[in-house]
C-alpha cells in the first residue's frame, strides 16, 4: 500500500468521526450542565422519546459539566437563541451559587432565563433498614439528648441536602452534624455502610434503594404516590417543603414566542400520563410551572433561599 492511499484512509476515518459528531447535533440540543448519570440527565432521557413522538424531531442531550452547573450557566447566554438549544437549570443551585460565591459564580440568578420547571425531587431524611430509628421523632430525640452526634451524609456543601439539615436544625431546635460527600452515590454508600446515622437526601434515593433504606420523612406538600406510608415534614409539624427543582432555560435574547413555544412543549410532555407514571415510579414529583408562572415562582424561591442563606451567615 502506498503512502497516498494511507493518507486518504486516515482522512476518511476523520471525516467519519466528524460526521458522527455532526449527526449527533441535529435537531434540538438539550445541554445538561452536569455529568451523565445524574437526576438531570435521567429525567432528560425520560423526556427524549416523548419529544420525538410528539414533535417528530430529535432532542440530543449534551453535557457541559463543571462547578456544580455554574460552568454551563455562565455560558448560557452565548448559546443560539433561536430555540435550537435549551439548557437544564436546577434550584436551589442557580440561586444559592451566586449568593455563596458572589461574582466568582460566573453568572447572576437573573441572567438565567428559566422558562419552565417540570419536576422536583423532594428532600427526605433516610436511615439504613436495620437502623433503630423508626420515625423522625425517634431520630430527633436522639439528636436532642446527644447534641452534634447525629451525623447526616449528603451531597455537597450549600446544596439542597445541606440546606435541609440546616432548616431541620432550626425548626426542631437540635444540633446535628452534616457530612458532605461528592455526589448522591457516595452519600448513599456512607449510609448503607453505616458510616453515618442518617442521610439528608432526596426521595429518589428511597425509590432506588428499596428495602435497603427507610425514608422517615419527605419534604413534599403531599405524601408521594409511590410512598403512601411516609409522612411529610408538614404532617410532623415542621413546615419544610423543599427539594431540587429541575427545569430548562433559554438564552436571554430568545424571543417571547420561542420562550412560549418551549414552555408549551415541556408542559405537553408533562401532561402525558405514561410519562407522569414513569416519573412517579422514580419518586420524581411532576410540577407544571410554565413560562406564565415562572416569575412569581422564582421570586418566592429567592425569598426562601435568602432566608436560609442568612441563617448560614452567607449574607447579612
Amino acid at each position, binding site marked *: 500500500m502506498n503512502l497516498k492511499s494511507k493518507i486518504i484512509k486516515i482522512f476518511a476515518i476523520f471525516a467519519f468521526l466528524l460526521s458522527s459528531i455532526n449527526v449527533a447535533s441535529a435537531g434540538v440540543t438539550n445541554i445538561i450542565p452536569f455529568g451523565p448519570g445524574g437526576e438531570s440527565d435521567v429525567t432528560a432521557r425520560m423526556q*427524549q422519546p416523548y419529544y420525538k413522538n410528539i414533535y417528530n424531531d430529535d432532542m440530543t442531550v*449534551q453535557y457541559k459539566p463543571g462547578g456544580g452547573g455554574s460552568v454551563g450557566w455562565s455560558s448560557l447566554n452565548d448559546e443560539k437563541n433561536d430555540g435550537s438549544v435549551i439548557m437544564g437549570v436546577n434550584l436551589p443551585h442557580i440561586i444559592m451559587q451566586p449568593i455563596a460565591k458572589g461574582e466568582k459564580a460566573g453568572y447572576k440568578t437573573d441572567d438565567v432565563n428559566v422558562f419552565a420547571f417540570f419536576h422536583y425531587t423532594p428532600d427526605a431524611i433516610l436511615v439504613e433498614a436495620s437502623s433503630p430509628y423508626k420515625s423522625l421523632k425517634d431520630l430527633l430525640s436522639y439528636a436532642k439528648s446527644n447534641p452534634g452526634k*447525629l451525623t447526616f451524609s449528603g451531597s455537597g456543601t450549600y446544596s439542597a441536602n445541606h440546606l435541609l439539615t440546616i432548616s431541620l436544625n432550626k425548626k426542631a431546635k437540635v444540633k446535628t452534624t452534616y457530612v*458532605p460527600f461528592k455526589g448522591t452515590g457516595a452519600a448513599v454508600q456512607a449510609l448503607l455502610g453505616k*458510616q453515618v446515622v442518617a442521610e439528608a437526601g432526596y426521595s429518589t434515593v428511597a425509590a*432506588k434503594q*428499596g428495602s435497603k433504606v427507610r425514608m422517615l420523612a419527605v419534604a413534599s406538600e403531599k405524601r408521594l404516590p409511590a410512598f403512601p406510608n411516609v409522612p411529610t415534614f408538614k404532617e410532623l409539624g415542621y413546615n419544610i417543603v423543599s427539594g431540587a427543582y429541575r427545569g430548562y432555560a433559554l438564552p436571554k435574547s430568545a424571543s417571547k414566542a420561542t420562550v412560549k413555544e418551549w414552555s408549551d412543549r415541556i408542559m405537553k410532555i408533562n401532561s402525558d400520563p405514561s410519562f407522569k407514571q414513569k416519573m412517579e415510579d422514580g419518586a420524581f414529583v411532576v410540577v407544571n410551572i410554565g413560562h406564565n408562572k415562572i416569575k412569581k415562582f422564582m421570586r418566592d424561591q429567592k425569598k426562601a433561599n435568602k432566608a436560609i442563606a442568612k441563617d448560614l451567615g452567607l449574607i447579612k
Partner: protein
Amino acid sequence: MTNIFTDFLSSLSLINLGLAFSGVLAGIIIGALPGLSATMAVAILVPFTFALEPSSGLIVLGAIYTGAIFGGSWSAILINTPGTPSAVATTFDGYPLAKKGDGDLAMSISCISSFIGGIIGVICLALFAPPLASISLMFGPTEYFWLAVLGLTLISTLAEGDNIKSLIGACLGLLLSMVGVAVVGGDMRMTWNISFLNSGIEIVSAMIGLFCIPVILDLTSMKGKHLNESETPKSLRLKESFFLVFSKKFQAVRGALIGTFIGILPGAGGSIASIVSYGEAKRSSKNKDNFGKGEPEGLIASETANNATVGGGFIPTLCLGIPGTPPDAVILGALLVQGIRTGDTLFTQQSSIVYTFIFGLFLATIMLLPLGLLMGRYAYKSIIKIPREILIPIIIFLTIIGSYSIQNNILNVYFMFFFGLIGWILNRAGFKASPIVLGLVLGQIAEQGFVQSYIIGNAQENIIANYFAKPISIVLVILILMGLFLPTLKKIYNKKRRNLNDQR
C-alpha cells in the same frame, strides 16, 4: 440452573453477538483516542439503546465500555499518552517497550492481559457479586483516605529515575488537586477569579497536556523515527507474547484480582487499580530494576488490573445502585430510564436481564482478544509507517478534539496546551508527568476522606479511633508502613549481614 442456561442462550442471539462485536470495535477506537473517554462513548450511545431490548442495550453499553478501557492502552504504548486515566501505569513500561522497537510485542501483551483481567473481573461479577458488594460498604471515608495514601506512597516505588523529583511532582499534583470549590466546606481555593476553575482542574485535559505535548514537541525537534521498528514488523509476535504472559500467570491473576477488588470500591477507579497492581508487581518482581525501562511484567500488571475494574465496578452498580465508575453511572441512568430497578431484587426478580448482561460482557471480553490483536497490529503498523510530518499534525488534531469534547468547552483546549507547556518544561528538568497526575487523582480522594473522617470522628467524640481502630484501616496502614520502610530496613539488614560475613 436451566434458567441461567436459557439466559446464556439468549445472550448468544445473532443480534446480541453483532451488537457486542460492534460495541467492542467502537469502544477500542474511542478509548484509543486521547480525551474520548469510555464515559462519553457510553453516554452518546444511550439513546440508541432505548430502541433495543433492555438486555441487548445493556450488552452494547458493556461492550463499548470493555473496548474503551482496553483501547486506552494503545495511545499509552504508542504515543506515551494514556487514552483513559486508567492507562497511566501502562505508559511506564508500554512506551519504553515501543521505543525499543518492541511495540508490536507490547500491543499483543496488553491485549492478552486486558483479556485475562476482563474475564476474571466478569467471573467475579457473575459468581460473587452480592458478598463483594457488602465488602465495598465496609469502605468508609477513613478507608478511602488510607487507600489514597497507599497509592501516594507507591509513587516512590514507581519512580522512574529521580526519587526526590517524583515526590516533588506528586506534591505539585496534590496542590493542583485542591484547586476549585472544596466538596467539604464549599470554600473556593486557588481559582483566581476564573469561574472555569471552580470545578477544579479537569484531570483528562491536564493529563493529555502533560503526557502528550512533550512527546509531540520532542517528536518535532528530533531526527529519525518516532518508534524503532522491530526486525520482524509484519508478525503479531503472538507466540512470544502468549509465552511471556503465561510465564507470568500468577502476576496476571494477582493484577486481575487487585483490579476487581479496587473496582468494587465506588469512586476509586481504574487509575488506582493499575497503580496499586503495578506497585505490587514491582515490589515482588525479580527484575525490579527493569521496571520503567520496558518490562513486560509491568505492562501485564497494569493492563490486567484496569480491565478487571470493568467487571468489579458493575458489582456495586448492580447490587447497590451506587455506580462503581463514571461509565457505570451512565449505565445506571439508562437502567432507570428503562424501568429496571437495581439492588437485591435485580439478582432475584429480574435475574434474566442481569445474567444476559453478564454473559454479554463475557462475550465482549472474549471478542476483545482477536479484535484487539488484529486492530492493534494495524494501529501499530500505521503509527510506524506514517511519516512524522503527517503523524504530528494528526496527534495535535486528536488532542484538541479530545480535550474539547470532554466538556464541550474551548477552555479545556487552552488548559490542555497550558499544561502541555508546563509538562514540557518540567520534562526538560527531569520531572515526569505520572507522579503529577497521580497526585492530582489521589489528592481529591485523600482530602475528602480525611476531612469526612474528621467530621464523623468529631461527632463521635473519638477522632483518633475513627482513623486507626478499624480492621481495614489497620491493614492499609500496615501496607503503607511496609511500603515506606521495608526497602530501608532491607538495606540495613543486608548491610549488617555483609558486615557479619566480613568479620567471619
